[in-house]
């Protein structure tokens, strides 16, 4: 068990526990905070996978923006905060059952899949990769369409959100 694996296990455990508590915790803000912790865990995973850029993007996008949005939303719908009683609805056990069932299925498939034990190839052009990614995102024959669509989606989402959530001053 190398140092890396140990770190991997620790972070994995921490992230999964955080994720679980996101789902289970009574208080919405607490679940938001746990979400932030999970996102940090995922960011660390990116670092482990030597995708530094994604780790930082993860932090900026998720933690910087989305988590804050969640907290904002939780605060805005404040009256509900004191809601008592269990946070999960009546037939939660079906959900649990399906989740477990899915997990079992996927794990079973993964273990039986030959490719899951591929060796870790060494990365060569460390620095060039980022610029290559940037270029691929805008070069017409690769991913310019999804990139532009994503931008359109973001603008539309922004306008939509403003329009829907903005309280109409009647």
């Amino acid at each position, binding site marked *: 068990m190398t140092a890396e694996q140990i770190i991997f296990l620790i972070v994995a455990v921490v992230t999964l526990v955080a994720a679980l508590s996101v789902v289970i915790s009574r208080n919405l803000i*607490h679940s938001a905070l746990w979400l932030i912790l999970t996102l940090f865990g995922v960011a660390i995973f990116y670092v482990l996978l030597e995708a530094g850029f994604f780790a*930082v*993007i993860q932090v900026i996008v998720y933690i*910087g923006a989305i988590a*804050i949005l969640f907290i*904002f939303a939780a605060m805005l719908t404040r009256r509900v905060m004191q809601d008592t009683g269990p946070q999960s609805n009546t037939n939660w056990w079906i959900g649990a059952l399906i989740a477990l069932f899915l997990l079992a299925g996927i794990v079973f498939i993964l273990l039986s899949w030959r490719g899951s034990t591929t060796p870790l190839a060494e990365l060569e052009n460390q620095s060039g990769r980022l610029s290559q990614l940037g270029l691929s995102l805008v070069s017409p024959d690769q991913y310019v369409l999804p990139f532009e669509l994503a931008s359109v989606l973001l603008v539309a989402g922004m306008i939509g959100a403003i329009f829907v959530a903005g309280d109409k001053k009647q």
Partner: protein
Amino acid sequence: MNFISDPVTFIANWLNNLLTSWGLSQAVVTVILKFIGAGIVGAFGFALVIFTIWLERKLYGRIQDRLGPNRVGPWGIFQTVPDIIKIFTKEYITPVGADKIVYNLAPILSVSAVLLTWAVIPFAPTIVGTEVNVGVLYLVAVGAIGALGIILAGWSSNNKYSLLGSFRAVAQVVSYEVPMVLALLVPVLLGRSMGINSLVNAQSVWFIVLSPIAALIFFTSSMAEVGRAPFDLLEADSELVAGYQTEYSGLKFGMFYVGEFLHAFTISALTVTLFFGGWRGPWAVQVPLLGVVWFFIKSFIVYYVVVLIRISMPRLRIDQMLNFNWKFLTPLALVLLIATAIVDKTFFTLLPGLNLLEIAIPWVRAGVHLVMNLLLILVTIQLLKSYRIKRILVVAKPRPVAVAPEPPASVIS
């Protein structure tokens, strides 16, 4: 590579050899060294705060034509120490109904956010925290965590004022992040890299010369980010008591206080590294220590400007602040980014055309960019003027003069 010119690396190597000699594996040794380095930088950060607090209070006094702290130690330089001791001894009061975990977590987050930025700033060609190739984005990410701290503090103290305060603070921090990021992109564009070290190396001609507007936008938006000076709505004493810090006392309040001051100095350091060439100076390359000296001299000058602005500028209203951001800074930053990209691209495509001396290229490039920026400044000023005139016009509409009501029809006939 001897002790005088480059003490830090000297010590680092010495330690490294020492530990390896003790039989630890190289990986473990690097981990330990990393820890030691982080510890030194953190301690240095706090020490720096103590000095800057004193410096700031002295400056306030001098600007306001008073002496400032001079009782404790010569020129009052030890004034900060009794403050710290005072804060340490204060009693911890946690408000009723406060969310304990989140209440205690908030100050830690806000201070750690600031300290994390120091990990990336290069003090000298050889002395730098970690060499991250997406350094600039790292800075932005860390800024986001700071915002998180503020929200949690505001919300967990179960106090309406603090909640309102935290909302406003977050709104301000999040919205000012946008122009800051855009302004950051300009040096990235010019330096052709996201890593801060490579940026500094690329600054043979300081970026301030190439795009003063970017520097200005970055500086103002980071000031807003910190929540000081004209934008210090966060803990506007007159209005929201201490904003989100009201419910904190003792060391927790201290943490916030230290975090804030350190953040102020950090933004000046950042401005220096990104726009004023960081540790670049004569012989800096040869003698790393000299780089550090240059770096701190520039930082303190910028810090001086920050304090100066803080003292002299009146506080902005929340809507003015947001309008200034969304209606002036962000569009300007966008236009600037696009303009620099275009100019840079055309310059490099035309470069082979006009045969310049090898060393003259950066200067010519700087000139071209400077011209573009000046043009942009003129245009914006012109726009602002026309915009202002129009507003005045609106105000000047005459009001209807009171007229006696006509007598009822029955009377006339």
